[in-house]
């Protein structure tokens, strides 16, 4: 198992009046090659949870295992950070070097890679995120557009060659083109490199389309952990905690309400189109 969390609970500022429990009894495991979507309303503990994945936070209670080794006991937190690449929200805020090359090279350099190795990795990572190495390597990261900055930051994590890539709302604040670009790059990475990806989001459409497994977090607990289609069939529950369902699903739900016989768990536009075409053909007949 690539990652396993056992009865993990976490409390911020424990022992003070400001103490706040962010996670309660989380049990979750992620296998190599999975594409997991992690969703939940604001303050549900998503960001806290993923910081347990790479040893940035150590659980108040419970255990975290990376490749079957307990973090903090059998494997150092610093070591897990290379294996579990974590991209924070608004990662462009972490850029600091004079050149794109220097910034992407920061991670591998910290790992002690040789200069040749660093160059190979930087080149590869920039290409993964769809930036041309030769035209970008010498530019200042602060002269790039928002979407480009973000992709440079993601490349900075990819250059550590992690086993798992965890991204916290990688598309927030981007225009639809930047959003599309990042998501398609992630899909590509998952397919060609079979990289394990955990995508944190609160946009149902985004996650539904990409992930083959969804984890829904609410008030620090796991509410659902299942295939997207099965989770979306529980639309009522999702609405209760302030999450929606994908647009297609909600369209089909209202069709069902009006007595049409359509499946309730569809969320892909193409499938939905097929179903609607079939429906019309039947009506004509």
């Amino acid at each position, binding site marked *: 198992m690539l990652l396993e969390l056992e009865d993990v609970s976490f409390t911020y500022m424990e022992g003070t009046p400001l103490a706040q429990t962010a996670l309660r009894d989380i049990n979750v495991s992620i296998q190599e090659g999975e594409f997991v979507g992690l969703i939940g309303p604001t303050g549900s503990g998503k960001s806290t949870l993923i*910081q347990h994945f790479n040893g*940035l936070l150590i659980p108040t209670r419970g255990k975290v295992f990376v490749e079957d080794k307990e973090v903090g006991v059998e494997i150092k937190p610093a070591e897990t*950070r290379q294996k579990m690449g974590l991209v924070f929200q608004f990662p462009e805020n972490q850029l600091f070097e004079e050149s794109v090359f220097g910034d992407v090279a*920061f*991670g591998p350099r910290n790992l002690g890679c040789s200069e040749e190795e660093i160059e190979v990795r930087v080149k590869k990572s920039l290409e993964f995120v769809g930036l041309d190495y030769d035209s970008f390597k010498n530019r200042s990261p602060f002269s790039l557009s928002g979407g480009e900055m973000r992709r440079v930051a993601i490349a900075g994590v990819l250059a550590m060659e992690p086993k798992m890539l965890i991204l916290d709302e990688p598309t927030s604040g981007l225009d639809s083109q930047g959003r599309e670009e990042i998501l398609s790059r992630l899909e590509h990475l998952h397919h060609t490199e079979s990289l394990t990806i955990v995508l944190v989001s609160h946009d149902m459409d985004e996650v539904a389309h990409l992930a083959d497994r969804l984890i829904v977090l609410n008030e620090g607990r796991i509410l659902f952990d299942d295939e997207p289609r099965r989770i979306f069939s529980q639309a009522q529950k999702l609405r209760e905690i302030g999450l929606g369902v994908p647009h297609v699903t909600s369209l089909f739900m209202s069709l069902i309400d009006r007595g049409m016989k359509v499946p309730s768990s569809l969320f892909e536009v193409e499938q939905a189109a097929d179903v609607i075409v079939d429906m019309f053909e039947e009506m004509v007949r």
Partner: protein
Amino acid sequence: MRALRVTVGQYFPAESPIHRLDPRVKICLTMLLMVAIFMVRSFTGFAGLGLLLCLVVYVGQLPWSWILRGLKPLRYVLLFTLVMHLLFTPGLVILLLGPLRITQEGLQNGLFFCARLVLLVSGTSLLTFTTTPIELTDGIEYLLSPFRRFKVPAHELAMMMTIALRFIPTLLVETEKIMKAQMARGADFESGNIFRRARSLVPLLVPLFVSVFRRADELALAMESRCYRGGEGRTRMRALRMEGKDWLMGLATVVLLVLAILVGLP
């Protein structure tokens, strides 16, 4: 993570008589306390002031760990003070360590100045522990306003302080975020010699400065678009009002402080 452990200048929420005291009284008393700490010339006096501070901590429902953590950054300064006094004060030698002579006066002076520093820092931190930044700056603005006729920009100073204080927690959170992001890329802020450590701060400081400037720009814009133009003719929503308890508490503390000074005089 380390950033969150800084307690100096932080507010500790509680419902205590100290918290409810008028901020102007608290500011004046804190200044008086500082004067007292400098006037006191004996350990008995310090003990008295120490007791007074303990009483405030107790009544104010503050955790002792916060006071101790507030003193932690001071530990090297204390050590330095003590060692310097131990080694370089002439007088009655009580211990010989090779070429080093430790004198009784040195020990006394060392402990004396350390006690003074500890009292100063913990005394002033009590003010910020029990007063919200807003109350604090309101108090300062009020206390400075008589000096306006000497062209002291009381309101602007207070606004600058409010903004600075307001952004301390924000910047701490931001620092922690950037630190974590860089740690996720294998950065190491805690090991290596002093030069390595200083260099390791670059990936933290550059993004932090970038974000501070961006925030400052955004804040200025947000304030201007709400027609802020300084203190002239500005009224306040919550005016400070001295009540019986404020006068009483103030008076009681003044008496205690004067007593401490009298006891502490040589």
